[in-house]
């Protein structure tokens, strides 16, 4: 019989060591997959490492790929802090992408276009996240299921757009018309894709951290999440907090879509997000819902993805190992989190 005993004092060392142990455990477990695929583990991880961090270009690619995941990670972290279970970052990302693409296609001066793309993307994500929030507050609908189902609704909406009115009439490809050249995000280093959105993500993380950790609003979010009854008793309008948190969370996820449109694809297609919304959940968990931790967690997952692609080309190990890493990392992190809170005891069932 397994028994869990609540730890009363969690040592800071444990707090730090267990997430790290989760990552190490993940990499060890996945090295067995590399072995099964018939490649040398050292070589494979070597290829991964150099593909993700080997030179300037590799580092920029890792950062570009991390950018949408920083935003979705922040989105999930903020929402989960208030115990608003937003599983819908994927759909909110897509909404943000669609709206920012619409705005980006309008002919106007570059600076204004880019600013408006951010605004439109944030609004698109925020409105999408508002639906599960309103359903929960007004109709007591479970936010986990509603936000999850909305992902599919938004995806089909996007498909209808790119296979309908947006469809490229010349090639017949299901893609949107490109945004204006002037709306393409500026690139910081010539020859790379290190675009404006990357900077935005790196600025967003500390801002979100500040909001959560140091402002009254952040305090309300944490209070609502940790003990809603006490929060209400203390005079916090928890419904309002959930509402605002949903707007913020959805908006952040929407920005992930903006970065994909403005900095990477310059248009919308079905493959605009290979599950970045779901990766956001993994990242938020790895970061223990700390906005500052989201950045390294996102870079870690991004490095795994970039590295897995290269490893696949070099050694023939299927690149899907990147997805396995995400799953294992998330599950082992959940267990690690549990172990920081509880002491596991094995004893015989007392009957």
């Amino acid at each position, binding site marked *: 019989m*397994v*028994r*869990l*005993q*609540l730890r009363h004092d969690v040592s800071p060392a444990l707090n730090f060591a267990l997430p790290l142990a989760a990552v190490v455990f993940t990499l060890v477990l996945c090295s067995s*997959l590399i072995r*099964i*695929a018939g490649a040398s583990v050292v070589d494979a991880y070597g290829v991964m490492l150099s593909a993700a961090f080997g030179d300037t270009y590799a580092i920029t690619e890792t950062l570009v790929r991390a950018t949408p995941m920083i935003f979705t990670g922040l989105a999930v972290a903020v929402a989960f802090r208030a115990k608003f*279970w937003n*599983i819908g970052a994927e759909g909110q990302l897509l909404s943000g992408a669609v709206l920012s693409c619409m705005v980006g296609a309008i002919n106007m001066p570059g600076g204004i276009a880019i600013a408006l793309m951010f605004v439109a993307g944030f609004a698109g994500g925020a409105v999408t996240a508002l*639906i599960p929030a309103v*359903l929960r507050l*007004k*109709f*007591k*609908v*479970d936010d*986990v*299921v*509603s936000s*999850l*189902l*909305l*992902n*599919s*609704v938004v995806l*089909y*909406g996007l*498909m*209808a757009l790119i*296979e*309908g009115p947006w469809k490229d009439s010349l090639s017949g490809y299901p893609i949107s018309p490109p945004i204006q050249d002037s709306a393409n995000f500026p690139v910081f280093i010539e020859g790379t894709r290190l675009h404006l959105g990357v900077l935005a993500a790196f600025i967003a993380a500390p801002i979100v951290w500040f909001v959560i950790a140091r402002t009254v609003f952040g305090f309300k979010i944490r209070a609502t999440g940790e003990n809603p009854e006490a929060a209400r008793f203390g005079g916090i309008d928890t419904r309002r907090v959930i509402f605002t948190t949903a707007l913020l969370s959805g908006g952040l996820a929407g920005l992930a879509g903006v970065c994909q449109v403005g900095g990477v694809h310059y248009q919308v297609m079905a493959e605009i997000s290979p*599950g970045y919304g*779901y990766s956001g*959940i*993994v990242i938020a*968990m790895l970061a223990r819902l700390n906005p500052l931790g989201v950045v390294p967690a996102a870079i870690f997952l991004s490095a795994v993805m970039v590295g897995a692609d290269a490893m696949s080309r070099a050694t*023939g190990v*299927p690149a*899907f*190992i*990147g*997805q*396995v*890493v*995400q*799953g*294992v990392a*998330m*599950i082992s992190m*959940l*267990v690690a*989190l*549990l172990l920081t809170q509880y002491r*596991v005891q094995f004893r015989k069932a007392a009957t």
Partner: protein
Amino acid sequence: MNAVLEQIFQVGFLAAIVRIATPLTLATLGEMISERSGVLNLGIEGIMLISAMTGFMGAYYSGDLWVGIVVAALTGAVFAALHATLTVLLGVSQHVCGIGITLLCTGLAYFFFRLSFTDSSHPATVQSFETIPIPGLASIPVLGPALFNQFALTYLTALLVPVMAYALYRTPWGLNLRMAGENPRAADAAGVNVMATRFLAVTLGGALMGIAGAFLTMAQFNTFTFGVISGRGWIAIALVVFGRWDPWRCAGAALLFACVDALQLRLQAAGVSHIPYEAFLALPFVFTIVAMAFMSRDAAAPPALLRPFRKEER
């Protein structure tokens, strides 16, 4: 409109509804039994996918489709048991863990499939299940060929609905299971081993999800593709809510959805629709979300859903 009506009253159309409903019913029942015991399993999408893959491989290498079905059921049970270990025994957050299971299973399924079949230009196929006409009944006009000339798994699924309803409402096992999902504390006081009950329910549910996945690769289609599940797991989550956690209603919900899906496929093929087909695909999701808003007042969901049970915590 005439074209639409013509499409509906065709044997092939009715048969297609039943065929599409089969995996959905299996998956929905699997999710329902898990949720009835108090555990939401968002791993369903991944569990269906990896079972579809292992089932296909089992059938491909053994040459026997039923071996594939057994392999798929076992695969589903194993990954559901992993979900149960984490959420029931350790009590970690169910939805986060479920998403993790889906990511893990998806990754593993793609990884091992690509490893086994490196040549993607010539997809491996199996000789898929053939339909078995039931003597006598199959010769009833229209309904006969539609309902009684189906796959063996479809008949078994149809049988499973009353069996599960009976087990859930009329046996001590079912009572314990429902108690574990409604009031685990009371169940525990009454001597029910809540953890074991939940663990078993989740694992059994996983086996059903596994068979649902395998039906797709071995009956509905004859090969494994990366998009073979394409959201059917999420649909099952929706159908459980729509079916109000009841076996009969869940099966009904699956049939209703299959009806919309079959109609959508027909309209798309006939090219008569001015509505984008995506609207039909999104319909069950929208429908469920709206339905949840109206239903939630009379609390059909198991009250202890998503709540881990820890004996020593009050």
